[in-house]
C-alpha cells in the first residue's frame, strides 16, 4: 500500500508532530542567529506558540518548515532590533563561546596544536558572522547552517532570489577576509 503524502495544511493538523519534526531546525537557526541559549529557547517556544495560534491562517501555499522559519526569522529580527538585545550583545564575550565550541568539536585525544588550530578557525568564522548585517547573517545561517537552497531562503526571508545571492556573496566575502586575516 502506498504511503499518502500530507499536504502542508494537513501536516499542520497534527501539531505535536510538527513540533517534534521542526523544533530542532528552528532552534538551531535561532541559536546560530542570536548566539544565546536562553534567548534561543524562549524564541523557539514563541515561534511554535505563534504558529499554533495562527495555524488557521496557514493557507498551505508554502511548506510548513518554510512557514515556521518565516516566523522564527521575524522573531529574531524583532529581538535583535530591540534595545535590550543590543545592550547585552555588546556586553557578551564571545571568547568563552568559541572555547565551548572547541570543547564540543574536538576529541579528547586531540593534540594541543590541533585544538589551537580549531579554535582559530572557529573564532574566524564566528567572528566574521558577528560582523554581518542582520540580513546577511540570516541568509548565511540558513545557507551554511541549514543547507537551504537559495529559493527556500528567498521564501523564508521574503526576498527575491537575486537579493539572497547578493547577501550571500557579501557574507562570504566577509568570512573569507576574516579567515585570511587569521591564517
Amino acid at each position: 500500500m502506498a504511503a499518502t503524502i500530507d499536504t502542508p495544511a494537513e501536516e499542520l493538523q497534527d501539531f505535536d508532530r510538527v513540533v517534534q519534526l521542526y523544533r530542532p531546525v528552528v532552534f538551531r537557526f535561532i541559536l546560530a542567529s542570536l548566539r544565546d541559549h536562553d534567548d534561543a529557547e524562549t524564541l523557539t517556544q514563541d515561534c511554535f506558540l505563534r504558529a499554533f495560534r495562527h495555524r488557521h491562517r496557514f493557507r498551505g501555499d508554502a511548506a510548513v518548515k518554510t512557514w515556521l522559519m518565516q516566523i522564527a526569522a521575524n522573531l529574531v529580527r524583532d529581538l535583535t532590533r530591540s534595545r535590550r538585545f543590543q545592550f547585552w550583545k555588546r556586553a557578551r564575550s564571545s571568547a568563552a563561546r568559541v572555547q565551548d565550541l572547541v570543547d564540543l568539536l574536538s576529541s579528547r585525544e586531540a593534540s594541543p596544536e590541533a585544538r589551537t588550530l580549531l579554535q582559530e578557525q572557529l573564532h574566524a568564522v564566528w567572528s566574521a558572522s558577528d560582523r554581518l548585517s542582520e540580513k546577511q547573517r540570516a541568509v548565511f545561517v540558513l545557507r551554511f547552517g541549514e543547507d537551504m537552497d537559495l529559493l527556500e531562503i528567498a521564501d523564508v526571508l521574503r526576498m527575491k532570489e537575486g537579493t539572497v545571492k547578493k547577501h550571500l556573496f557579501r557574507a562570504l566575502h566577509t568570512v573569507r577576509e576574516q579567515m585570511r586575516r587569521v591564517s
Partner: protein
Amino acid sequence: MTHLSSEQISAWLLGDGTAEAQRHVESCRQCHDDITELRNGLHLFRQSVHRWAEHSESRNLPAPAPSSPISWTLAAATVVAMTLALLPMYLNVRQAQLEAERAQDALLMDQVHIRITQTVPQSMERLMELMSEGKEDRQ
C-alpha cells in the same frame, strides 16, 4: 595570472562556477587553497551550529520520572491502608479525652452552682455557723 575574484569564489561555492573558473581552480594552487580553506571554515560553522544545538537540547531534556506509575499506586494504597488502621485508635483516644473534659466541666459547674446559691459571702460563712450554733444552744 589573474586569480578568481571574491564574487567568482562565492559563485563557485554556491555551485554557480563557470567552466573557465573550473579550469582556473584546477590549475591555480592559490585559488584552490583559498576555496578549500573557505569551504572548511563553512563546514566547521555548520558542524559547530549543529553540535551546539544538540548539546543545548540535551541539557533541556526533562529529568526522568522519579518512579513508575505502579509505585505511585502502591504508595497511595499504603497511605489509605495505614489511615484506615490508625483511625479507630485515634477515635478511642479522642473519645476518652472528650469524656475527661466533660467530667471536669461538670465538676466546675457544680462548684459554680454551690457558690451562687450561697446566701452570704464566703468570708462570713464561719460567723453564720457560730451564730446558728449559739441559737441552738440557747434553745
